[in-house]
């Protein structure tokens, strides 16, 4: 196993959480009800906390002295390795909840599997993440059920969000050479197993929500290789602005 593969894999894990946290942070002060403002900010905080642990570790694995901030603020669009799902705009609250639900249904079994990773640091980080991920999934699945089985409008909005975002779940489960090397080394789980748990969660929640599971059509990919949608550039332009405008400054 090369350090380069472990570095890439750790960045993939970190970038999902960093970008999703950024998106959720955009809601702060604009939520549909004060309690949800607090809940979304909580999630944003959990995600950024896990991202920081992973980025710090990625910097150590790389061994070039890069810090969490160097990796977050000084990489460009093609160097970010998050899945396309998490960079999708917030849209209405149904889109935000569905985006989180799809991510949570993947993130929880992933974190559980990483508890058994041969990489002690990734296993330790997952140890903290599992508890948070359970709460996240409960939050998003409760809201999805409320929407699906709430009013006609909420049902419709949830179904539209699901149909729009479904394609991006493809990106969550692609396994390239880097991933296969990680599986072989016992660092990462085989994603077909994670996908089975994901499918079971999705089917159970959608059935309770009276929503239809979209048919797999064209499924998005490329995020893990740094081939993103146009949205990511704007996220980074905003997120990295001060570090780029004042190189080397301490904040």
């Amino acid at each position, binding site marked *: 196993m090369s350090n380069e593969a472990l570095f890439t894999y750790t960045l993939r894990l970190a970038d999902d959480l*960093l970008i999703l946290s*950024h998106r959720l*942070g*955009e809601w*702060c*002060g*604009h*939520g*549909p*009800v*004060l*309690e*949800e*403002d*607090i809940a979304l*900010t*909580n999630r*944003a*905080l959990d995600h*950024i*906390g896990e*991202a*920081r642990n992973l*980025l710090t570790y990625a910097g150590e694995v790389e061994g070039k002295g890069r810090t*969490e*901030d160097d990796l*977050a*603020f000084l990489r460009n669009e093609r160097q970010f390795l998050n899945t396309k799902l998490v960079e999708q705009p917030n849209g*209405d*609250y149904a889109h935000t909840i569905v985006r989180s639900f799809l991510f949570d249904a993947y993130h929880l079994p992933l974190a559980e599997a990483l508890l058994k990773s041969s990489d002690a640091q990734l296993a330790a980080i997952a140890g903290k993440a599992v508890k948070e991920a359970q709460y996240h999934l409960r939050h998003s699945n409760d809201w999805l*059920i*409320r*929407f699906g*089985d*709430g*009013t006609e*409008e*909420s049902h419709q*909005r949830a179904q539209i969000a699901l149909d729009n975002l479904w394609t991006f779940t493809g990106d969550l489960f692609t396994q390239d050479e880097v991933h296969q090397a990680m599986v072989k080394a016992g660092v990462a789980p085989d994603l077909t197993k994670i996908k089975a748990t994901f499918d079971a969660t999705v089917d159970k929640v959608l059935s309770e929500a009276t929503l239809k599971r979209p048919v797999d059509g064209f499924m998005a990919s490329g995020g893990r290789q740094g081939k993103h949608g146009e949205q990511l550039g704007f996220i980074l332009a*905003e*997120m990295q*602005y*001060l*570090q780029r405008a*004042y190189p080397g*400054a*301490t*904040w």
Partner: protein
Amino acid sequence: MSDTTKREALFQAKVDSEQKIEPKDWMPEKYRKNLIRQISQHAHSEVVGMLPEGNWISRAPSLKRKAILLAKVQDEAGHGLYLYSAAETLGTSREQTIDDLLSGKAKYSSIFNYPTLTWADIGAVGWLVDGAAIMNQVMLCRTSYGPYARAMVRICKEESFHQRQGYEIMAVLAKGSPEQKEMAQDALNRWWWPSLMMFGPTDANSPHSAESMKWKIKRQSNDELRQTFIDRTVQQAEVIGLTIPDPDLKWNEATQHYDWGAIDWAEFNSVVAGNGPCNKERLAARNKAHNDGAWVREAAMAYAAKKAERKAA
């Protein structure tokens, strides 16, 4: 003595002997109204105050700063929640209170009608705006109305953390590059006078003050609190090498306080009247969040009703 006069005398005796007034106790209608006005204004200020600070979450300059700012703005939402609940104990509903904000009928602290233009503004807001708010809030931990006093105890703990993190942002900038120091000084220049205005009109011109003092809702006057704030903050600015933008500011040996220049009350009145730099944006943002969220709240209610129905069946 009429019944009402007797009750009022008993009420005042209770307040004078430092017993807390609780929701089910008898209270003069004007005391109730005064408190509803004050607590809901306070709640609205917490919630509207999330906007200028939330404005920098996506651009915070490090992951640590971003996490701290998220946590801070989340605290403000929590304060809004406790305070709306405290107002509800006086017989108003959260819905009505929020409607009054959205229609422009209720006020919130005018300070949040100023924009956060640079990252240093996040430091200045924590240091000065939260710092000024704490002066009021520490006093309110001993206010005569029990639920308000108890909410304030927790709020004060969190606000004092907010104030320190704001000051720390300013200290780091002031020690940084010349550009960063300039950014910090510029933020202090813009936020200083509006922060002093946060204590409200001078005692001579404060319409609600006399009654609030008699009922121990307030325990110190606007001018006293303002002076304490100035005395403390001038020294904090000196420590980090920033200059308070007031040419008349100087230590007075005789009073053991700082003398300071004149507040531009015309500006204060104009912002309160709705003509600040961001009044319209702030209310528009709150209205948009409320309107966009209507279907979400309806869905939650509809689902809860269905669930209850199924349980009963």
